């Protein structure tokens, strides 16, 4: 009998050990865009590897191809990625097409509360349908479109005097969109240290999402809305409201009068290059890049400062950022969920912020030290309090491409009027929603 017990115990031990070994043997692949925070995540994930025994592989795709590559992967039910940090706009398609695992039961079982994360990020990165308690992602990387500028130029007496003379006010961080344009126009074509510099680098890229992400930085502060009533798809009078028309005209004026020559197809990379090469006084870009910019030996440190996207009729910033999801076609879902559980831990979230990632966890954001932890931390908090996102519908790619075309046609190619561009945009979007059976 004793032998039988021993044999049973040994068998159980082997079984448990075997289970443990098989769990530890898992190699997880996490897919994301190739940018600064991705490097921070690699560093952070080493701790997960040590703790869990799983091995982490990473598949980072350059931003211009990220959506194409990843959406093709999901649509073809590929199992390349076990975990995907996908753009916020993909959540609708990810949920409705069955690409993402629904995480509610897992969150309940593991005691992960969405109430611990910033409300705006939970709404934008995790839920589908919007605002419901159906979670398909854990907020992974909070982000918004913000601004940075040459603090050293803004502080120079000769420049300050010239600005005061030209505008009648002191040169300082802009308090409104119109002040932003005024400052950019002031710097446009100005000689600084023997070099001609320009006003600002804004987003004008045509192929993926660039100009849409840029122009919404003007549209939202003017009060742009996608629908008159949320969920109704009634866009007439909202998308083409007088405020939206004014904001679009403003963006075109900005492009024409305050950007470097040849700046017709520019997005994140070009914005960073323009700033780091000393071409522009200001630039828009995602907060995700700000730690790297601050650390830059030539234009970072004392030479740079940051500000939130200025308000106009109201505060408003374009939402970036992503949630982390488990891909339903992965055969290592348990290990992937282990990663999410580990990543949701407040201590890990604090390390994530310390390494250069943007945590959305309230324990980090509401910590008394947070605002002073980085020169852009306060701006980030302010921005996240007034973010708006693009459509997150399953047909988001179609909606996005329509906007890219209409806005680029008007702003860069100078075709038609702002009113016509927005009217045509409503026609395009209406057609899409009709095809979707939502109108």
């Amino acid at each position, binding site marked *: 009998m004793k032998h039988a017990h021993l044999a049973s115990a040994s068998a159980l031990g082997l079984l448990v050990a075997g289970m443990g070994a098989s769990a530890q043997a898992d190699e997880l692949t996490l897919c994301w865009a190739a940018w600064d925070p991705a490097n921070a995540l690699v560093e952070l994930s080493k701790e997960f590897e040590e703790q869990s025994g799983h091995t982490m592989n990473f598949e980072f795709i350059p931003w211009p191809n990220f959506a*194409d590559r990843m*959406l*093709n992967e999901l*649509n073809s039910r590929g199992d390349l990625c076990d975990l995907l940090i996908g753009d916020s706009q993909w959540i609708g*398609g990810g949920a409705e*097409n*069955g690409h993402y695992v629904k995480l509610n039961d897992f969150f309940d079982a593991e005691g992960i509360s969405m109430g611990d994360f910033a409300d705006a990020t939970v709404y934008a990165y995790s839920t589908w349908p919007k605002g419901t308690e159906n979670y398909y992602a854990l907020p992974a990387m909070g982000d918004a479109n913000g601004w940075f500028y040459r603090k050293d130029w803004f502080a120079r007496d000769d420049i300050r005097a010239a600005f005061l003379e030209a505008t009648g006010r002191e040169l300082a961080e802009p308090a409104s969109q119109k002040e932003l344009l005024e400052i950019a126009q002031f710097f446009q074509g100005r000689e600084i240290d023997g070099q001609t510099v320009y006003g600002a680098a804004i987003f004008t*890229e*045509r*192929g993926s999402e660039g100009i849409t992400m840029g122009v919404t930085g003007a549209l939202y502060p003017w009060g742009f809305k996608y629908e008159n009533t949320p969920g109704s798809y009634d866009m007439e009078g909202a998308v083409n409201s007088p405020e939206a028309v004014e904001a679009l005209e403003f963006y075109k004026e900005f492009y024409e009068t305050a950007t*470097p*020559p*040849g*700046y*017709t*197809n520019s997005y994140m990379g070009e914005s960073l290059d323009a700033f780091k090469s000393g071409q522009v006084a200001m630039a828009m870009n995602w907060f995700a890049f700000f730690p790297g910019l601050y650390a830059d030996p030539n234009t970072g440190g004392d030479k740079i400062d940051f500000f939130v996207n200025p308000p106009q009729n109201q505060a408003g910033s374009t939402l970036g950022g992503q949630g982390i999801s488990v891909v339903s076609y992965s055969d290592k879902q348990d290990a992937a969920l282990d990663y999410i559980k580990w990543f949701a831990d407040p201590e890990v979230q604090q390390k994530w912020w310390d390494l250069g990632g943007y945590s959305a966890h309230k324990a980090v954001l509401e910590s008394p030290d947070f605002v002073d932890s980085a020169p852009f931390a306060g701006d980030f908090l302010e921005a996240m309090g007034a973010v708006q996102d693009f459509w997150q519908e*399953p047909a988001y*790619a*179609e909606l996005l*491409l329509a906007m890219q*075309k209409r806005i*680029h*046609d*008007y702003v*860069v*190619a*100078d*075709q038609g009027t702002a009113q016509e561009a927005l009217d045509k945009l409503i026609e395009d979007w209406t057609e899409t929603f009709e*095809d979707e059976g939502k109108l």
Partner: protein
Amino acid sequence: MTETPLTHAARATPPSVARKIKGLSDRAIAWIFVGPTIFLLLAINIFPLIWTINLSFTNFRANRPGREVDYVGLRNYERILNDSDIWLNMQATAHFLFWTILLQVLIGFTLAYLINKKFKGNDLWTTIIVLPMMLSPAVVGNFWKFLYQPQIGLFNYIVAFFTGKDPSSFEMLGSVQLAPWSIVIVDTWMWTPFVMLICLAGLRSIPDYIYEAAEIDRASKLRQFFTITIPMVLPFLMLAVLFRGIENFKMFDLVVQLTGGGPGSTTELTSINLKREAFEKWRTGYASAYAIILFVTVFGLASIYVKALNKVKER
């Protein structure tokens, strides 16, 4: 019996195989040889074509496998043909096709005519001239993007040098007026050598005795050019036009690298637009109809052209 390679091969064939083949008719043996090719042709050309035609009458979306697929009749075709934006894409494609072919034929033929003359360093010049077509279109697109850069681009500086304009006062890729020409220039730079090589083959195929006979008849050089050179090179030229026409109709990589279809949609050729519809918007049914329209257009034009080419050859 004289030993020939054929009889040698026949003797070397193992008897069992020979016996087996002996039992087959010529037609059966022909099918055995042709069968795999026909199968491949059906599998990778004909079947996808028929499938695409079928999809073009539906609202199918490849990214929504679970969604019900409805037959929508001719709605996709109707939408495409009534879409003013698509007609603008067609116009941009026609502009690109016309000017690239015209310039490539003119410059390519001129270069071939010059290279065909015997001179020192002839081979070296030929090699240098054909270099651009050996490069990847993506690489060409990228470095021309730099050449066109208003602030640091060599192209703008050269134009500025000759015109006295400020180099940063014009944007080849950012201007609605100049962008269509910027892609024409790059494609011409890259593919003129190809036309030149075909023309060179044509020029070198003209026997010297024809020119000698013309000399004896005291025909002038100009007369020889128009009555001997041009007619005899014409089939080659027309072949080059056919190749370049088909290639440029589906031009994608070079233009995507250079302009991404912009500014606005100024250089959005039909192939770029089709790719966006099919693989970015995922309107598979609509994109299938679009592809069929383009296929019929190219196939129709190419058929008419090939008939004309054959007539020229027969002359």
